[in-house]
């Protein structure tokens, strides 16, 4: 995803001189091509995230479209008040590019994990959030959002994620995408869990369970109408995210279900409000948090739902 991101950004920067890229000293082996092509529009602002966000706001107030690239915790949490005030309150065209969704940086530990970022970004007025699930979504959404007003948070995984979409025509900012239609269950994924969701849906299919798979790549503004349509199908809904179940996709969907007045079986799958103290790679971490194997539906819902 990050390779796709930087290639896309270079294409955009060739067309639009306003694009500027800042990094608080991250991006080795990723950002070099941009730096070489556009040296006057690239700046390593040093390991100083608070200042970096303020500088980005000042550049944006001067007419630039500014991307700030780092690992998720450092570009969202370390500088949260700068994000809230300098970017969102000032409503500046700054795009936070966070790498390492969930436990992507597995053995580096929770300092480099990100399970809270969607929750805190969602709560900020003016902020938009995209969480691409594969390289195709990454390219499409970065292109569609680059000159939008106000700030944007782009949650990326790292590299090597496979393409799940077959083409890009259905991918629209602010609109959920249905990748598979089934009449037994609805699985809504976001960010780097799209691949897992897709695998689960294929496995369920072999067992005779037909699942609707949704990629919710835009978390804010959330595609409320689409979720209301899902609710009206009266099928059980599961959300799947590599994020705390508090405040992320699951919470956002739960809010709409609760306000709809409909009663449907609903479960959030994600990280259950704990730090990882496990040492191991991304896949190992996911195993420990039950994010690899598809759940037993009867156990998950504590009753037979099919």
């Amino acid at each position, binding site marked *: 995803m990050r390779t796709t991101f930087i290639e896309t950004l270079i294409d955009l920067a060739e067309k639009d001189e306003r694009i500027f890229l800042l990094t608080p000293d991250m991006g080795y082996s990723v950002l070099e091509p941009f730096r070489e092509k556009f040296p006057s529009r690239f700046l390593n602002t040093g390991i100083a995230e608070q200042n970096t966000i303020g500088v980005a706001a*000042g550049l944006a107030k001067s007419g630039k479209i500014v991307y700030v690239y780092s690992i998720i915790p450092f570009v969202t949490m370390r500088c949260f008040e*700068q994000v809230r005030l300098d970017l969102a309150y000032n409503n500046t065209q700054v795009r936070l590019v966070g790498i390492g969704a969930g436990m992507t940086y597995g053995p580096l530990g929770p300092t480099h994990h990100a399970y809270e970022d969607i929750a805190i970004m969602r709560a900020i007025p003016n902020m938009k959030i995209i969480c691409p699930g594969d390289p195709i979504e990454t390219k499409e959404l970065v292109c569609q959002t680059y000159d939008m007003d106000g700030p944007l948070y782009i949650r990326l995984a790292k590299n090597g994620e496979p393409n799940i979409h077959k083409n890009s025509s259905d991918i629209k900012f602010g609109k959920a995408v249905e990748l598979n239609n089934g009449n037994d269950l609805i699985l809504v994924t976001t960010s780097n869990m799209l691949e897992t969701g897709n695998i689960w849906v294929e496995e369920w299919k072999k067992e005779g369970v037909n699942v609707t798979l949704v990629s919710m790549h835009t978390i804010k503004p959330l595609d409320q109408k689409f979720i209301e349509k899902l609710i009206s199908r009266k099928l059980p809904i599961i959300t799947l995210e590599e994020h705390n179940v508090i405040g992320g996709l699951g919470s956002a969907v739960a809010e709409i279900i609760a306000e709809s007045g409909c009663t449907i079986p609903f479960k959030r799958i994600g990280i259950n409000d704990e730090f990882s103290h496990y040492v191991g790679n991304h896949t190992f971490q996911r195993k420990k948090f039950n994010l690899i194997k598809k759940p037993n539906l009867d156990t998950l819902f504590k009753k037979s739902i099919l």
Partner: protein
Amino acid sequence: MIYASQSSHIGAALSIVDILVVLYFHTMNIDSKNYSNILRDKFVLSKAHASSALYSTLAEKEIIPLEYLEKYYVDDGILPGHLDSTFIPGVEFSAGSLGHGLSAAVGMAIANLQLPHSGKIFTLVGDGECNEGSIWEGIMLASHLKLSNLTAIVDYNKIQSFGMTNDVINQEPIVDRWKSFGWDVFEVDGHDFLQLITAFNQPHSKPKVIIAHTVKGKGVSFMENKLEWHYKSPNQEQYDLAINEIDDQN
């Protein structure tokens, strides 16, 4: 304004009035016609709790209508206690939490270095505000990039929110500190127009800082150098006394 709305921070506002007068009426290329021109000089008030001083200055410059001042800090008002650039002409950056404005000014200065005939960037920070780590992050980057179009002013009134500045965290040697971070440093009496003008006029190849020795509550004897006037609003009697004192000085 502060009397009418019974708001706080009058001491912090009075300590920067003379600096704003020099900036807006002498040093900066800014007026009621060019305040949204891309080539204008820009001023970022980082210690935004002194907003009333900036609003008054903008009104005197006819960048905002004089009537706005009656809409400060009141219900259905226009001018909030801290700065909101969304709807108020001449306010370059929304601020209020300390340690934000210098970084934004650094960003503006970087942008302007790439823009031919662009204006200069000025930012005013409080002495207590320099407790914030982000200020020093900005200071380092500005000198590293040799932002010769950037001037910071430190409002060195020596009183912060809950104590004397140098009792809370000592700022001294303040001049040497900024020098050692690579800035051109000028130390002035922040209420002396001539000293301020001279310092602003000094050419510089690096970012410039003016350490302005000021008096919190300047101009009103019973407010001067008193911590409580960070918070208090004058009552009727104090208001009359203050206005008389200021009138006498003029």
